[in-house]
Protein backbone atom coordinates (compact mmCIF):
# COMPACT_ATOMS: atom_id res chain seq x y z
CA UNK A 1 0.00 0.00 0.00
CA UNK A 2 1.21 3.48 -0.78
CA UNK A 3 2.11 5.70 2.15
CA UNK A 4 2.01 9.43 2.06
CA UNK A 5 3.10 12.17 4.38
CA UNK A 6 0.64 13.83 6.74
CA UNK A 7 1.04 16.87 8.91
CA UNK A 8 -0.57 16.85 12.33
CA UNK A 9 -0.46 19.50 15.01
CA UNK A 10 -0.60 18.63 18.68
CA UNK A 11 -1.46 21.02 21.46
CA UNK A 12 -0.26 20.13 24.89
CA UNK A 13 -1.55 22.22 27.76
CA UNK A 14 -1.10 22.20 31.51
CA UNK A 15 -3.95 20.34 33.17
CA UNK A 16 -6.72 22.60 34.43
CA UNK A 17 -6.57 23.33 38.14
CA UNK A 18 -2.81 22.99 38.36
CA UNK A 19 -0.92 26.12 39.16
CA UNK A 20 0.30 27.81 35.98
CA UNK A 21 2.89 30.30 37.14
CA UNK A 22 4.01 31.02 33.62
CA UNK A 23 0.50 31.87 32.46
CA UNK A 24 -0.09 34.03 35.52
CA UNK A 25 3.12 35.97 35.06
CA UNK A 26 2.35 36.64 31.41
CA UNK A 27 -1.14 37.78 32.34
CA UNK A 28 0.36 40.30 34.75
CA UNK A 29 2.82 41.46 32.13
CA UNK A 30 0.04 41.98 29.58
CA UNK A 31 -1.95 43.95 32.13
CA UNK A 32 0.94 46.28 32.79
CA UNK A 33 1.45 46.71 29.07
CA UNK A 34 -2.08 48.08 28.95
CA UNK A 35 -4.01 44.98 27.87
CA UNK A 36 -6.30 45.31 30.85
CA UNK A 37 -9.02 43.10 29.45
CA UNK A 38 -6.97 39.94 29.47
CA UNK A 39 -8.54 37.47 31.86
CA UNK A 40 -6.19 34.54 31.63
CA UNK A 41 -3.24 33.17 29.72
CA UNK A 42 -2.12 29.57 29.53
CA UNK A 43 1.00 28.43 27.83
CA UNK A 44 1.45 25.03 26.33
CA UNK A 45 3.36 23.47 23.47
CA UNK A 46 2.44 23.44 19.83
CA UNK A 47 4.08 20.49 18.14
CA UNK A 48 3.89 19.92 14.42
CA UNK A 49 4.66 16.41 13.29
CA UNK A 50 5.09 15.17 9.76
CA UNK A 51 4.78 11.44 9.46
CA UNK A 52 4.20 8.87 6.77
CA UNK A 53 1.11 6.69 7.00
CA UNK A 54 -1.23 4.69 4.78
CA UNK A 55 -4.07 7.07 5.60
CA UNK A 56 -5.03 10.01 7.77
CA UNK A 57 -6.63 7.91 10.46
CA UNK A 58 -3.53 5.82 10.97
CA UNK A 59 -1.40 8.94 11.07
CA UNK A 60 -3.60 10.31 13.81
CA UNK A 61 -3.54 7.10 15.76
CA UNK A 62 0.23 7.06 15.64
CA UNK A 63 0.44 10.64 16.88
CA UNK A 64 -1.99 9.86 19.67
CA UNK A 65 0.35 7.12 20.74
CA UNK A 66 3.38 9.43 20.51
CA UNK A 67 1.65 11.85 22.84
CA UNK A 68 0.88 9.15 25.34
CA UNK A 69 4.33 7.64 25.23
CA UNK A 70 6.58 10.64 24.95
CA UNK A 71 5.26 14.05 24.17
CA UNK A 72 2.81 14.81 26.96
CA UNK A 73 3.40 14.39 30.66
CA UNK A 74 0.52 12.12 31.71
CA UNK A 75 0.49 13.53 35.23
CA UNK A 76 0.35 17.22 34.53
CA UNK A 77 -0.73 17.76 30.94
CA UNK A 78 -3.61 17.24 28.55
CA UNK A 79 -3.26 17.12 24.81
CA UNK A 80 -5.36 17.43 21.71
CA UNK A 81 -4.59 16.43 18.16
CA UNK A 82 -5.73 18.23 15.02
CA UNK A 83 -6.82 16.33 11.94
CA UNK A 84 -4.11 14.97 9.69
CA UNK A 85 -3.55 16.97 6.54
CA UNK A 86 -1.71 15.47 3.60
CA UNK A 87 1.42 17.46 2.86
Amino acid at each position, binding site marked *: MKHRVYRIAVHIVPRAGLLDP*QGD*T*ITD*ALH*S*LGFKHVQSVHVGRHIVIETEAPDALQAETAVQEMCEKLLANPVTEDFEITSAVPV
Partner: protein
Amino acid sequence: MKFGIVTFPGSNCDYDAYRAVVDQLRAEATYLWHKTEDLEGVDVVVLPGGFSYGDYLRAGAIARFSPIMRQVVEHARRGGPVLAICNGFQIACEAGLLPGALVRNAGMRFVSDAVHLRVENAGTLFTSGYEQGAVLRIPIAHGEGRYVADSTTIGRLEDDDRIVFRYCDPAGAVTGDANPNGSMRGIAGIVSDEGNVLGMMPHPERAVDPLLGPPDGLPLFESLLARMAV
Protein backbone atom coordinates in the same frame (compact mmCIF):
# COMPACT_ATOMS: atom_id res chain seq x y z
CA MET B 1 32.89 56.47 39.11
CA LYS B 2 29.71 54.70 40.05
CA PHE B 3 28.13 51.45 38.90
CA GLY B 4 24.35 51.07 38.96
CA ILE B 5 23.16 47.52 39.18
CA VAL B 6 19.57 46.97 38.16
CA THR B 7 17.42 44.63 40.24
CA PHE B 8 14.51 43.15 38.33
CA PRO B 9 12.10 40.78 40.05
CA GLY B 10 13.99 37.51 39.79
CA SER B 11 17.46 38.98 39.24
CA ASN B 12 19.92 37.00 41.30
CA CYS B 13 23.39 37.98 40.15
CA ASP B 14 22.81 41.62 41.07
CA TYR B 15 24.44 40.78 44.38
CA ASP B 16 27.45 39.16 42.70
CA ALA B 17 27.98 42.19 40.47
CA TYR B 18 27.64 44.51 43.44
CA ARG B 19 30.22 42.59 45.48
CA ALA B 20 32.60 42.38 42.54
CA VAL B 21 32.53 46.14 42.11
CA VAL B 22 32.64 47.04 45.78
CA ASP B 23 34.93 44.33 47.22
CA GLN B 24 37.30 43.60 44.36
CA LEU B 25 37.26 46.68 42.16
CA ARG B 26 36.90 48.93 45.21
CA ALA B 27 34.59 51.22 43.27
CA GLU B 28 31.20 52.59 44.17
CA ALA B 29 28.01 50.69 43.35
CA THR B 30 24.32 51.08 43.96
CA TYR B 31 21.29 48.91 43.26
CA LEU B 32 18.69 50.40 40.92
CA TRP B 33 15.14 49.18 41.46
CA HIS B 34 13.27 48.15 38.32
CA LYS B 35 10.26 50.31 39.14
CA THR B 36 12.16 53.58 39.32
CA GLU B 37 13.02 55.82 36.42
CA ASP B 38 16.01 57.38 38.12
CA LEU B 39 19.51 56.20 37.29
CA GLU B 40 20.88 58.18 40.24
CA GLY B 41 23.66 59.57 38.13
CA VAL B 42 25.54 56.31 37.73
CA ASP B 43 28.28 56.08 35.12
CA VAL B 44 27.92 52.41 34.21
CA VAL B 45 24.69 50.43 34.17
CA VAL B 46 24.90 46.71 34.85
CA LEU B 47 22.05 44.48 33.71
CA PRO B 48 22.79 41.45 35.86
CA GLY B 49 22.15 37.75 35.52
CA GLY B 50 19.32 35.78 37.01
CA PHE B 51 15.81 34.88 36.02
CA SER B 52 13.89 38.11 35.66
CA TYR B 53 10.19 37.26 35.82
CA GLY B 54 11.22 33.63 36.14
CA ASP B 55 12.29 33.64 32.47
CA TYR B 56 8.66 32.82 31.86
CA LEU B 57 7.64 33.16 28.23
CA ARG B 58 11.21 33.90 27.08
CA ALA B 59 14.29 34.99 28.96
CA GLY B 60 14.29 38.78 29.19
CA ALA B 61 10.99 39.27 27.35
CA ILE B 62 9.07 40.78 30.24
CA ALA B 63 11.86 42.61 32.05
CA ARG B 64 12.56 44.82 29.08
CA PHE B 65 9.29 46.63 29.72
CA SER B 66 10.30 47.63 33.25
CA PRO B 67 10.13 51.38 33.86
CA ILE B 68 13.87 51.59 34.40
CA MET B 69 14.60 50.17 30.97
CA ARG B 70 13.48 53.42 29.32
CA GLN B 71 16.25 55.17 31.23
CA VAL B 72 18.76 52.45 30.47
CA VAL B 73 18.03 52.75 26.76
CA GLU B 74 18.35 56.51 27.04
CA HIS B 75 21.67 56.16 28.90
CA ALA B 76 22.97 53.84 26.18
CA ARG B 77 21.83 56.21 23.45
CA ARG B 78 23.86 58.96 25.12
CA GLY B 79 26.88 56.67 24.91
CA GLY B 80 26.82 55.55 28.53
CA PRO B 81 28.34 52.12 29.14
CA VAL B 82 26.00 49.19 29.78
CA LEU B 83 27.35 45.83 30.88
CA ALA B 84 24.73 43.15 30.22
CA ILE B 85 25.56 39.76 31.67
CA CYS B 86 23.67 36.51 31.07
CA ASN B 87 20.01 37.36 31.75
CA GLY B 88 21.07 40.96 31.25
CA PHE B 89 22.32 40.06 27.76
CA GLN B 90 18.96 38.46 27.02
CA ILE B 91 17.16 41.56 28.25
CA ALA B 92 19.42 43.82 26.21
CA CYS B 93 18.65 41.86 23.04
CA GLU B 94 14.94 41.93 23.76
CA ALA B 95 15.13 45.66 24.34
CA GLY B 96 16.95 46.21 21.06
CA LEU B 97 20.14 47.48 22.68
CA LEU B 98 21.96 44.63 20.97
CA PRO B 99 21.08 42.71 17.80
CA GLY B 100 20.10 39.05 17.67
CA ALA B 101 18.56 36.81 20.27
CA LEU B 102 19.43 34.16 22.80
CA VAL B 103 17.54 30.91 22.49
CA ARG B 104 17.58 27.57 24.20
CA ASN B 105 20.97 25.84 24.41
CA ALA B 106 21.51 23.41 21.55
CA GLY B 107 21.91 20.58 24.09
CA MET B 108 18.57 21.70 25.55
CA ARG B 109 19.93 21.51 29.08
CA PHE B 110 20.98 24.18 31.50
CA VAL B 111 24.77 24.24 31.55
CA SER B 112 26.83 25.27 34.55
CA ASP B 113 30.57 25.06 34.06
CA ALA B 114 33.76 27.03 33.73
CA VAL B 115 34.48 27.68 30.05
CA HIS B 116 37.31 29.25 28.11
CA LEU B 117 36.84 32.48 26.20
CA ARG B 118 39.08 34.10 23.67
CA VAL B 119 39.30 37.86 23.66
CA GLU B 120 38.52 38.77 20.05
CA ASN B 121 38.67 42.51 20.42
CA ALA B 122 40.81 44.04 23.13
CA GLY B 123 40.05 47.50 21.86
CA THR B 124 36.67 48.01 23.48
CA LEU B 125 35.73 50.00 26.52
CA PHE B 126 35.35 46.70 28.36
CA THR B 127 38.39 44.79 27.21
CA SER B 128 41.31 47.20 27.06
CA GLY B 129 42.74 45.45 30.11
CA TYR B 130 43.16 42.21 28.17
CA GLU B 131 45.67 41.16 25.55
CA GLN B 132 44.18 40.57 22.14
CA GLY B 133 43.64 36.81 21.80
CA ALA B 134 44.01 36.15 25.53
CA VAL B 135 42.27 33.01 26.79
CA LEU B 136 40.14 33.48 29.92
CA ARG B 137 38.44 30.98 32.17
CA ILE B 138 35.01 32.20 33.24
CA PRO B 139 31.92 30.47 34.67
CA ILE B 140 28.73 30.07 32.70
CA ALA B 141 25.31 29.11 34.02
CA HIS B 142 22.46 29.34 31.57
CA GLY B 143 19.73 27.44 29.76
CA GLU B 144 19.05 29.94 27.00
CA GLY B 145 22.43 31.12 25.84
CA ARG B 146 22.62 30.15 22.21
CA TYR B 147 23.26 33.34 20.31
CA VAL B 148 21.43 33.56 16.98
CA ALA B 149 21.00 36.32 14.42
CA ASP B 150 20.32 36.55 10.71
CA SER B 151 23.26 36.32 8.38
CA THR B 152 23.33 40.04 7.64
CA THR B 153 23.62 40.80 11.32
CA ILE B 154 26.30 38.18 11.86
CA GLY B 155 28.20 39.55 8.87
CA ARG B 156 28.04 43.05 10.25
CA LEU B 157 29.18 41.91 13.70
CA GLU B 158 32.16 40.16 12.14
CA ASP B 159 33.03 43.05 9.83
CA ASP B 160 32.81 45.67 12.54
CA ASP B 161 34.81 43.61 15.00
CA ARG B 162 31.93 43.60 17.43
CA ILE B 163 32.32 40.00 18.50
CA VAL B 164 34.26 40.50 21.70
CA PHE B 165 34.44 36.98 23.14
CA ARG B 166 34.18 33.53 21.61
CA TYR B 167 34.07 30.16 23.34
CA CYS B 168 37.33 28.31 22.81
CA ASP B 169 39.33 25.37 24.11
CA PRO B 170 42.08 25.84 26.71
CA ALA B 171 44.56 26.47 23.90
CA GLY B 172 42.42 29.20 22.40
CA ALA B 173 41.00 27.30 19.43
CA VAL B 174 37.36 28.05 18.64
CA THR B 175 35.85 24.60 18.11
CA GLY B 176 32.43 23.02 18.17
CA ASP B 177 33.35 21.00 21.25
CA ALA B 178 34.33 24.13 23.12
CA ASN B 179 30.98 25.75 22.38
CA PRO B 180 28.69 24.97 25.34
CA ASN B 181 25.40 26.13 23.84
CA GLY B 182 25.55 26.07 20.06
CA SER B 183 25.93 29.83 19.61
CA MET B 184 26.55 30.91 16.04
CA ARG B 185 30.25 31.40 15.31
CA GLY B 186 31.05 30.53 18.93
CA ILE B 187 29.81 33.93 20.03
CA ALA B 188 29.95 34.49 23.79
CA GLY B 189 29.80 38.28 23.84
CA ILE B 190 29.19 41.22 21.51
CA VAL B 191 29.16 44.98 21.67
CA SER B 192 26.71 47.46 20.24
CA ASP B 193 27.29 49.60 17.19
CA GLU B 194 28.80 52.39 19.23
CA GLY B 195 30.74 49.97 21.39
CA ASN B 196 29.22 51.11 24.66
CA VAL B 197 26.90 48.17 25.34
CA LEU B 198 28.50 44.79 26.03
CA GLY B 199 26.35 41.67 26.20
CA MET B 200 27.86 38.36 27.25
CA MET B 201 26.55 35.04 28.55
CA PRO B 202 29.54 34.12 30.78
CA HIS B 203 29.79 35.68 34.22
CA PRO B 204 32.89 37.87 34.63
CA GLU B 205 31.56 39.07 37.99
CA ARG B 206 31.92 35.54 39.34
CA ALA B 207 35.59 35.46 38.38
CA VAL B 208 37.11 38.33 40.31
CA ASP B 209 38.25 36.79 43.59
CA PRO B 210 41.32 34.50 43.51
CA LEU B 211 39.86 32.49 46.39
CA LEU B 212 37.19 31.15 44.04
CA GLY B 213 39.31 30.56 40.95
CA PRO B 214 41.32 32.48 38.37
CA PRO B 215 40.21 36.14 38.58
CA ASP B 216 39.98 36.44 34.81
CA GLY B 217 36.89 38.61 34.93
CA LEU B 218 38.47 41.40 36.94
CA PRO B 219 40.30 43.12 34.03
CA LEU B 220 36.92 43.67 32.40
CA PHE B 221 35.80 45.81 35.31
CA GLU B 222 39.22 47.44 35.52
CA SER B 223 39.06 48.35 31.85
CA LEU B 224 35.84 50.22 32.47
CA LEU B 225 37.26 51.94 35.48
CA ALA B 226 40.38 53.01 33.61
CA ARG B 227 38.45 54.37 30.62
CA MET B 228 35.91 56.21 32.70
CA ALA B 229 38.55 57.84 34.83
CA VAL B 230 40.03 59.51 31.76
